[in-house]
Structure formats: structure tokens, C-alpha cells
């Protein structure tokens, strides 16, 4: 299967194919890493990486080759990954793609990334994201937008002179836009990502990749730059369902440094890939059939229903009556938590400092210069809804609505539903600058199908399921019971096998 593969094509392997190839000694970790380093260098115009760490990668790859030779390979031995710039990496600049963190170099490693290195993985560099993970298009990054490796049919996007992209390119989604674009463009075998309202699943859907947000508490949040602590979860983006299963097993697990991380055994998720879904009960929530829902999305959803039924699952119409209130409640809870979490960026302990007449002016000027427009808006909304006289009307009410959203899911799971099938996004990838410039809410609506999952703390996976009439990928989302990611991997595999995979063909940017 791997014989005579030219070195450049090693990047086309899936994570699990590369793992098996390394074990069979068809190529070395150093060869695999070099192929990826070259691909990353040739793809700078996509702006997926905000920091490349080739020397670090080669050092790790050499150590992996030694362990492979000794038969001491870890589960991710020698596999080159990209790391979202929200994960603190010891001795390697970490910015959350915000000017306010400047050249912050953490003296510690996030728990999730440390587990990847424990298992033998190789770090290629840090990936672009929306500033502090606030955005759905990667356009709010201080490093500038990421280019989606997918183009509309007949689009004018191409590689221009001096390594720039010409034409009106598409966004990769966000906030994990760099992670999704890098996986889709074969610039890493898989990537870490985080999801507060849809930031793993929406970019996965926009790029034809697989992304899973595990149950809240599955992955430690320690060392991940905080946005909204009651909603944030780390998870992987990969080329296949199986790849994300392998990644999640390494990323998940109890961590005494995060009091919200759960002390539960992490299953061998890969074993659930390919497991029969016969007899599973799949809920189809009628409230997700939004008025004015894109006909292509609706047809894809029906296709997904048919695939799961053909695999032996039982399809049941269900009701999640408070779904429509998830997004407005999110836009109170998430900014409120963000306004508190981001209070730490004050120009004293790290990052940017602007001088002022006194300490208050120093804070105000530092934060005005360091935060981008979307982050400022959210901090101000959060400050307002938590301020004296408004707390009950906004924040407390939103937290009560959140209880109702969670109860909706509990009720359907109590009826014996194993998972819920929905579209992942209301549209395919859109063009840069096309949304949200006049009204921020237009951009927020991207997360209408994903945000309920964060509000209820549930696991959700986005799997590519087809192409729209513009030739762009569309994804389906499966929502599971708390801590039942295994069912999502089994069902996701059924969709992947039925729909096929959607790799980007031509490296038009190189």
C-alpha cells in the first residue's frame, strides 16, 4: 500500500495510515516530518501557521525514530501535528492570535499538548485562529485571515506573484480555522483545536475534515488560553473519523490541575470505529428544520438519515423545544465569562503595555491597543450583562435558559435516543469579508446548529457528507450522550463510509 510513495506524497496519508506505515518501517518519522515541513513552507500563502517550528519537529522526529527502532513507540509516535495557538507550548511563542499577548513564551505546557508529546507526536508549529477563539471565520486573528484550501467552482482564486493568494478566497471557518485549513491542505496529519460554540465543528464542515468536540470535562483545559470556561473544550480535527478517534484518546483524560476535568477512564475510541450501529435510535430534532433552511443542507440532512437507516439505525423525530434560545443565551454567557477571563490582560504580567499617566490609563490604553474589535465588543457586552442592575435580567436568565436547553436533551436521551443527527452549519464556506461587517449577529448565526451542544456540555462530531452546487464541502453533526463519544465515532464512520472522503485535490497554492 505504501511502496514507492514519493516523499512529497507522505502528507497525503491519513494519521492512522502514517502510523501503520511507520510501524511497518516503510518510511521514517524523519522522512514523514520533512515531507510535512516542506508542504508547510510551500503553503505560507494560506496563512494557516502563525509559527513554524521545523527544528523542534526534526528533533522530536529523530527521537521518535529511535523509539520506533527499539520497539517503544507510543500511540502517536512520529506523527506530525499542528497545534492551535490557544494551547500553551513550553518555550514556544503562544499568542491566542492576539496582539495583547505579544511575544508571550509560556514556561509551561498545556496538559492536552503534553499528552500528545508523551505519546510520541511531533509538533510542526502553531496554527492560526480567531483572536481568543472569538469568531466563526478566522478573520479576527491578529495574524490576518486564513485561506480555505477549497475554492468555489470557477472561482478567481489562485497563487499570485510573490507568494500571495489572488482573488476573493473563502474563509475556513473559525475559530479553529488554521487547524481545519492545515488538515485539509495536508500541512499536518491532524491538529488540536478548541470549541466554545462550534469552533471545531464549523471549520471542519467548511473544509471537508472531521472535528469532534468531546463532552465538557473530557479534556483538561489547563494551559489552554481561556475564553468562556464553562463552555470551552479541546478536541481534534483530522482527515478521517478514525484519525480523530486516535487523537482524542491521547488528548483526553483526568487532570488534577483542572477541577472540571472528569476522573473517568478514557476508552480505546478507535475500537468503536466500524462498530455496528444496528438498532441505535437516532433523533431528528424538528426545531432544527429552520425557516428558510438552505435546500442543499436540508437534502444532505435527509441523505444522512437514509444512510443511518440503511446501516440499521432507527430514525425517530424528536423535539428540543428550547433550541432557538441557545444562541442568544450563548451571547450572554460566553461574553460574560470572557469579560472575566480576559481581565488578566492588563499590561502588567505579560504581553503588550502602552504607557499612561496613571495605572488606570495604562490598563485602558493597553487593552485598547491590544484587543481587536470583536474581542472588545464581547468584553463590553459581558461587562454590561454582569453589571449592577442588569445581572438578573441578562446573565441569570440566560443561565436558567441553559438549564432548559440541557433538560431538552436529557428528556430525549431518557426516551432511549442514542444520538441526534443535525446539519453542522447553515451554509458552506463563505467569502472573506462577506459576513458580519455591518451586524455582528450575522456572523454569530453560523453557530446556530453547534452552540446548543456547548450549552448542554455534550459531545458533538462534524463529519463531511457531501459537496454543494458550488463544489464546496458540507458536514453533518452528530450529538451524543454525555461521555459517549464512542457512539459518535461509530455513527460518524457510517457517514464517512457512505459519503466517501473529501480530500483537497490540487495544491493550487504552491
Amino acid at each position, binding site marked *: 500500500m505504501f511502496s514507492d510513495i514519493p516523499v512529497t506524497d507522505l502528507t497525503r496519508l491519513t494519521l492512522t495510515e502514517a502510523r501503520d506505515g511507520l510501524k511497518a518501517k516503510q518510511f521514517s518519522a524523519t522522512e514523514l516530518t520533512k515531507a510535512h515541513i516542506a508542504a508547510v513552507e510551500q503553503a505560507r500563502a494560506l496563512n494557516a501557521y502563525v509559527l513554524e517550528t521545523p527544528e523542534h519537529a526534526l528533533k522530536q522526529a529523530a527521537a521518535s525514530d529511535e523509539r520506533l527502532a527499539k520497539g517503544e513507540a507510543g500511540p502517536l509516535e512520529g506523527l506530525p501535528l499542528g497545534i492551535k495557538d490557544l494551547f500553551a507550548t513550553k518555550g514556544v511563542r503562544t499568542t491566542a492570535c492576539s496582539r495583547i499577548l505579544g511575544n508571550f513564551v509560556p514556561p509551561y505546557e498545556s496538559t492536552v499538548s503534553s499528552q500528545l508529546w508523551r505519546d510520541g507526536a511531533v509538533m510542526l508549529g502553531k496554527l492560526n485562529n480567531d483572536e481568543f477563539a472569538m469568531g466563526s471565520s478566522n478573520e479576527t486573528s491578529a495574524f490576518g485571515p486564513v485561506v480555505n484550501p477549497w475554492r468555489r467552482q470557477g472561482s478567481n482564486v489562485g497563487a499570485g506573484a510573490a507568494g500571495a493568494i489572488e482573488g476573493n478566497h473563502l474563509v475556513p471557518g473559525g475559530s479553529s480555522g488554521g487547524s481545519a485549513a492545515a488538515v485539509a491542505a495536508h500541512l499536518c496529519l491532524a491538529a488540536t483545536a478548541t470549541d466554545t460554540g462550534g469552533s471545531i465543528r464549523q471549520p471542519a464542515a467548511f473544509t471537508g475534515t472531521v472535528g469532534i468536540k468531546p463532552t465538557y470535562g473530557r479534556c483538561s483545559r489547563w494551559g489552554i488560553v481561556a475564553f468562556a470556561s464553562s463552555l470551552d473544550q479541546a478536541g481534534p480535527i483530522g482527515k478521517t473519523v478514525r484519525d480523530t478517534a486516535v487523537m482524542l484518546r491521547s488528548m483526553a483524560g483526568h487532570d488534577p490541575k483542572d477541577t472540571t476535568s472528569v476522573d473517568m477512564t478514557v476508552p480505546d475510541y478507535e475500537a468503536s470505529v466500524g462498530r455496528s450501529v444496528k438498532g441505535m435510535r437516532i433523533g431528528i430534532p424538528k426545531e432544527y428544520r429552520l425557516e428558510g433552511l438552505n435546500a442543499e443542507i436540508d437534502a444532505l440532512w435527509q441523505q444522512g438519515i437514509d444512510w443511518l437507516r440503511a446501516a440499521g439505525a432507527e430514525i425517530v423525530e424528536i423535539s428540543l423545544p428550547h433550541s432557538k434560545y441557545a444562541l442568544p443565551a450563548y451571547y450572554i454567557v460566553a461574553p460574560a465569562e470572557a469579560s472575566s477571563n480576559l481581565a488578566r490582560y492588563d499590561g502588567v504580567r505579560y504581553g503588550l503595555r502602552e504607557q*499612561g499617566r496613571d495605572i488606570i490609563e495604562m490598563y485602558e490604553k493597553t487593552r485598547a491597543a491590544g484587543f481587536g474589535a470583536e474581542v472588545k*465588543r464581547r468584553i463590553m457586552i459581558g461587562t454590561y450583562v454582569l453589571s449592577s442592575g442588569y445581572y438578573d435580567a441578562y446573565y441569570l436568565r*440566560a443561565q*436558567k435558559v441553559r438549564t432548559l436547553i440541557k433538560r431538552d436533551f436529557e428528556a430525549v436521551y431518557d426516551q432511549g435516543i442514542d444520538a441526534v443527527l443535525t446539519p453542522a452549519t447553515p451554509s458552506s464556506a463563505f467569502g472573506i469579508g462577506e459576513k458580519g461587517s455591518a451586524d455582528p449577529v450575522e456572523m*454569530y448565526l453560523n453557530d446556530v446548529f453547534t452552540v446548543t451542544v456547548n450549552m448542554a456540555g455534550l459531545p458533538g462530531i462534524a463529519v463531511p457528507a457531501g459537496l454543494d452546487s458550488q463544489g464546496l464541502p458540507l458536514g453533518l453533526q452528530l450529538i451524543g450522550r454525555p461521555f459517549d463519544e464512542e457512539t459518535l465515532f461509530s455513527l460518524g464512520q457510517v457517514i464517512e463510509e457512505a459519503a466517501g472522503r473529501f480530500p483537497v485535490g490540487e495544491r493550487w497554492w504552491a
Partner: protein
Amino acid sequence: MSVDAATVKRVAHLSRIAVDDADVPKLQGELNAILGFVEQLNEVNVSGVEPMTSVTPMVMKKRQDIVNDGEIASEIVANAPASEDDYFMVPKVIE
């Protein structure tokens, strides 16, 4: 509910973000768009509903009250914009 220009300035100050007067009208419009969007929550009957405090029912873990870290002052101030002798330096706070 919607915010007026004075409220925008007050919230900016509470947020410790300097805002130019010229930028207030645009910010006011954006904040009001968001507040208008969340207004629909008023349709929901929340009487007798407990506000969510934790999505996953769990007992808060407590770590042992022992020192297990420290003696790394120089690492802690390494990223500071201004420091001296392992202290963070800030503009004068007390006259």
C-alpha cells in the same frame, strides 16, 4: 433594552478599554444589535428554573493544602513588560 452613548462610555471604562468619542456611535450600534438579538430570551418562561452552575454534575475536587510548586519567580516575571529584581513594575499607584 438598549444602551445610549453615555452607557457605552461607562461600560468601556468598566471594561478598562479606552474608546475614542468618535468610535462610540458605531460601538453603540453594534452593542445594541447584540442586545436586540438576545431580547428574545424574554419569551421564555423561566419561573422555578434553577440557573445552571455546572453542565456536568460533579463534586468539586479539592487539592491538598500543601505547597507543591514555587521558587520560580524569575520564570514568572520573564514575560513581563517591565520587571526588576523579580518584581512586576507598574506606574505609581500610591502618592
